[in-house]
């Protein structure tokens, strides 16, 4: 048993590593989209993008006012961009391009080359050192291009453009730090600077107050109905079978507001929306709706389990010896299907995320689901990453515990690899 527990713990640790790698791939690698640009929008100014990179950990230092660049000549708009490790200046129509290589130079050298240079025949650049120029004089000039990555800045004749400087964190070090932060439980801050970790815990309590009763109620109700259908058979069984498929086919997003309207606004049985003392009154209707909507898939699965079990010989034997139906059910059938029921409920745990996402949004419960939805709507990756990581870790923990419980309750289950 101990060996099994350790072995399972080891494989759960491997999966935890896999989860963190997947989240790294989704959020940090830039494979799906540049994280900073997603926060600011693609048309944001270079300075806003740079500040977002600093906050997201892509920059370890950011100096937005290194120097101000001016261009003199006939009216023209130039575009400043980073081109690899070089700084590129081109006219708006793209007919003239000029590159300043930055590799292996210091900021001082690069600025000296820019001052007085001619990006295109007829135009001349001039430079006013900003507050950062002195301080970063000996820093590598490639930081000027790094600060412009993913952004573009316009430089008009007669109007200056700020040059910025940034120290980019190498990707592998950024990934390592991110994984370390996740496993330490250091989830950082939201876009508005609120710490995420503390918020998660207080919100998790409210989410659990909603999800746990709903989960237990729907599981118990599904189990009871399934046993009833399996024992009675006949029309009841057939009605429940069709109902369960119908119930599974109802869209939660559409059904929740309709039920909310009917039960809370029209019939006035429950408060409609909100979160204030006494809190439990605001939980009643969400729990009820969750139970009613979530019941059907379980019901179908449990019914097939119960049917299979009722046809076993030991049930016929117990009945032949004169045991009543209820007693056979309670002492023999229920006990035997508890292991698969437990195993299945754990695999259904991730589905709780969906329930809390939608129900908390519709009822204004300030839990993790509502937090996630708000994060998606306001474009806050850090919150989305934290909630996703935390719920995956909880799932792995429950999976491990349930596996041990099943192995303990049923040696046959334990023998399976």
């Amino acid at each position, binding site marked *: 048993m101990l060996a099994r527990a350790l072995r399972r713990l080891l494989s759960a640790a491997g999966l935890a590593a*896999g989860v963190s790698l997947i989240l790294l791939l989704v959020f940090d690698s830039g494979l799906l989209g540049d994280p900073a640009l997603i926060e600011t929008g693609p048309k944001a100014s270079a300075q806003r993008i740079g500040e977002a990179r600093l906050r997201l950990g892509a920059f370890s230092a950011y100096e937005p006012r290194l120097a101000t660049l001016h261009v003199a000549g006939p009216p023209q708009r130039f575009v400043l961009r980073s081109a690899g490790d070089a700084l590129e200046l081109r006219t708006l129509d793209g007919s003239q391009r000029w590159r300043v290589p930055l590799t292996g130079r210091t900021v001082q050298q690069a600025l000296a080359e820019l001052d007085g240079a001619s990006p295109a025949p007829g135009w001349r650049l001039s430079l006013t050192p900003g507050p950062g120029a002195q301080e970063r004089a000996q820093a590598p000039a490639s930081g000027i291009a790094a600060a412009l990555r993913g952004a573009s800045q316009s430089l008009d004749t007669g109007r200056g453009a700020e040059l910025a400087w940034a120290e980019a964190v190498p990707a592998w070090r950024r990934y390592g730090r991110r994984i370390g932060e996740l496993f330490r439980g250091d989830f950082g801050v939201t876009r508005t600077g609120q710490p995420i970790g503390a918020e998660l815990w207080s919100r998790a309590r409210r989410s659990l107050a909603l999800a746990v009763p709903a989960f237990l109620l729907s599981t118990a109700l599904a189990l009871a109905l399934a046993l009833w259908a399996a024992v009675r058979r006949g029309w009841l069984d057939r009605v429940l079978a069709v109902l369960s498929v119908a119930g599974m086919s109802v*869209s939660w997003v559409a059904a929740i507001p309709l039920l909310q309207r009917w039960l809370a606004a029209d019939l006035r049985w429950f408060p409609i929306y909100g979160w204030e003392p006494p809190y439990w009154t605001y939980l009643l209707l969400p729990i009820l709706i969750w139970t009613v909507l979530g019941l059907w898939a379980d019901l179908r699965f449990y019914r097939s389990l119960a049917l299979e079990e009722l046809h076993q010989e030991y049930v016929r034997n117990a009945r032949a010896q004169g045991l009543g139906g209820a007693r056979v059910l309670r002492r023999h059938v229920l006990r035997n299907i508890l292991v698969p029921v437990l195993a299945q409920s754990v695999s259904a745990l991730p589905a709780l995320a969906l329930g809390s996402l939608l129900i908390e949004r519709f009822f204004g419960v300030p839990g993790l689901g509502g937090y996630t939805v708000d994060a998606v709507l306001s474009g806050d990756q850090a919150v989305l990453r934290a909630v996703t990581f935390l719920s995956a870790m909880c799932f792995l923990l429950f999976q491990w515990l349930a596996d041990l419980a099943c192995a303990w309750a049923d040696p046959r289950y334990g023998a399976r690899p």
Partner: protein
Amino acid sequence: MRKWVALLLAYLVLGAAAALHLVGADHAVQHYGRESVPPGAGFWLGTDHLGRDVLALTLQGLRISLQVGTVAAGLAVSLGAALGMAAGWYRGAVDRAAVWLSSAVAAIPAILLILAIGFMLGQGYLSAIAAIAAVSWVGVFRVVRAETERQKTRDYVLAARGAGAGTLQVLPRHILPNLLPMLLVQLALHFVYAVNTEVILSFLGVGVAEQPSWGRTILFGVHDLAEGHPWPLAAVTVAMFGLIFPVQRLADHLRDRLDPRAAAPR
């Protein structure tokens, strides 16, 4: 069985009709002065608070759902089947790596991972499809891997291999045909999953945004409902049920007849 297929076909035709604008109503037109009209002549299902024809909106949403559902389910099943067959056939390191990857994906609540991928990819049709497929292949992988492993030691496979057939002949020519019934069931189940998920994504502002997906119509419908006009929301609810229920029944029938061991997607 036959009537479910007939219902499905009717639905597909309706969806195609919407695509071709055969209904003669444009979902994007706002009829000024005729906002929140109850169902009746002119607007069979009424209008929403922006004065848009609810019937046209619902049909347009059906078209989007059919497309997203079919493509996402197709991708998920193809990916899951390919990886599952490879893992079940080769065993060893390939198998361990694939199982590890799929279990890691499965450890993350599907809706959150889909939401995260869709969020990073940005709004739109294709990103919704990609996000759903990138996560839901896991369920297909699991059943296909188990079945491939089982088929691998069957006599017909041993005979084929004994006759000199290599992996590239046995897998597509002999094992794949035996997996087809199971894949068909998985396709139907993942279609349902994809339709539901796209609606949720669009409702939350991550999926389809510029088109009247059912999720967007529900979002507006909640607004109408608060003002006492339930029909946009009711229309979408009924339409979604009408699409999902027959497919779900069809999947059940197929499963009972063809493949008693298949598991539903998570």
